[in-house]
């Protein structure tokens, strides 16, 4: 299912889900020219937000990625409470829900390391470029490390006053 970021954002907005945009989509929002195929979010783990997530995502039929379709899975508040990170396929594309971000921490720390960026006409919390770089360094997988030169160049360009936010 191709990514429909607007649909995913609209769905989450309707229930007022508390989350921070992280990963590749945060990099894109900051100006990265690298492709990403999913939306990565760090979500708040309080009970109310888990219920909001459940209600928001249900119409998009979330299922675990890379798990056979016949494996039973229901993404409800209980499942979210019992887990932490979920790699999902939805009717609006792939969505990764992360309870924690490497090198940053939980939602509260992610918010403290985010900036507000207008995306699809609404202010949204996006991990700052500096925090994204830190997270990629700590995560340390080869694909994270490969992203660093571009992100550091973007940071430099921003310091020079290039770019719209």
């Amino acid at each position, binding site marked *: 299912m191709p990514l429909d970021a607007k649909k995913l954002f609209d769905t989450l907005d309707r229930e007022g889900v508390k989350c921070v945009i992280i990963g590749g989509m945060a990099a894109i929002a900051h100006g990265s020219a690298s492709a*990403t195929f999913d939306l990565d979010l760090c979500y708040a783990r309080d009970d109310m937000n888990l219920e909001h997530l459940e209600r928001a995502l249900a119409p998009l039929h979330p299922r675990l990625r890379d798990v056979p379709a016949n494996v039973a899975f229901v993404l409800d508040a209980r499942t979210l409470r019992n887990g932490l990170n979920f790699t999902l396929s939805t009717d609006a594309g792939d969505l990764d829900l992360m309870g924690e971000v490497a090198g940053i921490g939980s939602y509260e720390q992610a918010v403290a390391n985010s900036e507000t960026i207008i995306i699809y006409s609404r202010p949204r919390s996006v991990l700052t470029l500096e925090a994204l770089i830190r997270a990629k360094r700590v995560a340390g997988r080869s694909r994270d490390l490969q992203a660093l030169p571009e992100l550091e160049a973007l940071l430099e360009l921003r310091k020079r006053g*290039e770019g719209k*936010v």
Partner: protein
Amino acid sequence: MRRMGNDQAEKTEPDAIARAIAYGVDITLLVENLKRTPTERIENLERWVAFLEEVRRAGEMKRKSDAARRKKAV
């Protein structure tokens, strides 16, 4: 907005930009992206991903039809 070719940046900037260029990052793409709004950047990505999906699907169909042709020939 200032435009910066890769060659120019390499000569003058022994910094993150030069390192990125040496790594193979096309700085001109980043500069172009930064002229867009964040929403435009995401919309651009979605168009690109949709195109990649089309290419992937076309490749898959071609491989299938080639395999079927080979099978028929045997």
